[in-house]
């Protein structure tokens, strides 16, 4: 009888110790499921976007730190809130936000499926996890390459370079385009051809024309490019580009110095050295 009482007391004590955090976590931050399913189709070398709803059911404001854990090798994941990269969110009581989880798969994936977890860490240390599973879709896969090691351009001028796109999947990819991320104030003149259609194993070349503003100071910059259509998105490639200053400004300055030099000599000749 006495032993039974001790065991009962221990069970109650254990429940008391373990109980509140779990109850509180459910109350405080309910991590909803994604809009459609927790399983996502991922294209090798591509990017998949999952939407996650995070809700604060607590009566207090909380900060949550988001982290993708146990990611398979080569995979990358990051969060976007209203289009901006984020790692923490602040939620008022009863507030809910929709966060985009971007999953980037490597070009060569050995497994056909996998899982990882999203960790939600509240500022008071309470953690919750959300499992995410994915299946590799070998039907659509896209590879992007460029043979350019480094580009050099003068400010105020235009340059063009070729980007090769290969359909590494099992199905045809239609209306493939490029997403070109340029430095501030640079402009994309055109991409020729604008769209491509590639059969499995086929590759195509797109010519990218960019122009650098004359106001661009000399330096090293990076152009980021990825290929996409409605079925697949390739990984992003970075092309380093060196901008050198146009000599026209220098010629004006040097010319001005020379003019002043000649005028000074003539002035001294006319008036003599004193």
């Amino acid at each position, binding site marked *: 009888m006495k032993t039974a009482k001790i065991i009962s007391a221990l069970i109650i004590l254990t429940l008391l110790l373990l109980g509140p955090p779990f109850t509180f976590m459910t109350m405080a931050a309910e991590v909803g499921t994604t809009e459609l399913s927790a399983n996502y189709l991922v294209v090798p070398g591509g990017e998949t976007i999952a939407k996650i709803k995070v809700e604060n059911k607590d009566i207090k404001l909380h900060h949550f730190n988001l982290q993708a854990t146990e990611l398979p090798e080569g995979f990358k994941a990051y969060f976007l809130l209203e289009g901006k990269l984020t790692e923490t969110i602040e939620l008022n009581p009863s507030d809910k936000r929709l966060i985009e989880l971007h999953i980037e798969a490597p070009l060569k994936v050995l497994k056909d499926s996998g899982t990882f977890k999203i960790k939600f860490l509240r500022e008071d240390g309470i953690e919750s996890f959300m499992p995410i599973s994915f299946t590799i879709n070998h039907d659509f896969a896209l590879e992007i390459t460029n043979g350019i090691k480094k580009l050099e351009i003068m400010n105020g001028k235009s340059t063009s370079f070729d980007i090769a796109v290969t359909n590494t999947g099992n199905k045809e990819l239609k209306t493939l385009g490029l997403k070109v991320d340029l430095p501030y104030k640079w402009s*994309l003149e055109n991409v020729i051809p604008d769209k491509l259609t590639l059969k499995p194993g086929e590759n195509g070349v797109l010519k990218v024309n960019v122009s650098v503003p004359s*106001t661009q100071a000399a330096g*090293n910059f990076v152009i980021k490019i990825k290929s996409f259509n409605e079925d697949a998105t390739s990984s992003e490639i970075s092309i380093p580009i060196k901008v050198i200053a146009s000599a026209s*400004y*220098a010629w004006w*300055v040097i010319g*001005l110095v020379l003019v*002043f030099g000649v005028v*000074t000599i003539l*002035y001294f000749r006319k008036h003599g050295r004193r």
Partner: protein
Amino acid sequence: MNATWNIARKEITDALRNKLFLTILGMLLTLTVVSVVLGAYQVRMTVDNYNNSINFLKSLGKADLPPMPNLNPISASKGFVNYIGMLGALLAMILGNSAIVKERRSGTLKLILSRRVFRDTLLNGKLLGNLTLLAGITLLSGVITFISVFAIGKVVLSGGDVVRMGLFFLMSFLYMTFFLVLGITLAVMVGNGNKALLLTVIIWLVLAFVFPQIGETMDMDNQLPGGFFAQMGMTRDQEHKLLEKFKFYETLRDGIEEMSPTKHYERISFALLNVKPGFEKNTPTEVLGLKWINLLGLTAPSIILWLIAYMAFLRREDIYQN
């Protein structure tokens, strides 16, 4: 040459007796020491934090250790750019102005020019003396920086970093040279010494603060907090189309910015000190190769002003008046 050097030596002696010059020099050196020491401490703290993390991970038996973070010890001189931009320029202007005005006020200009000293020789001597002073100040600041980074930051600079730092101090010297020459030229051209100094300070304010600010604040994207284009919800294509319509405005804005030696000094210095990203992998000569236009923007105005000073001084007939 002997006359030039004698005048230069007298310039140095006079400057070391000038209370205003010594006060500003003291302020500049104090600020340099404070900023460099703080920068060096920052480097040391980063090194200590890294070492502590490594020791902790090793104690846990971890083999996969994080790489050393990029310390960029030469950025300890970042604050120096601002101090040279203000106090360095002020110091140089006072030296330039007093080089001519003091001789005129004391009547010694008449005395010197009555001897067999050409007017251009006098100017050369004044310039040489003051340049020696500025070079000394720059060298002293450089030595303080090197010692602080080594002694406090406990970092041994690589060969490339030493060259980058050396080139940065050379740029600082060239920047101060411009304001020294401006001070001398205006003192020669304007009869009244006080008016000349006032005019020099006004030009400095315009070149060092107004013009660079025009470049920054008149940039279309800086019109709203968080960026004009982002706040208006524009795509990159819309942004480019809009900028295309304001091409002339952009060229004008940039042209005004290019007229500022301060902007040229800032651009080349930040590239050399790795404060501005994108130059980490370049050698010092490659940085100079990329930023040669800024080097030209720092030196050419000084040469032009100096030639103007020669011509103005040659024909001034009221130079003997007290």
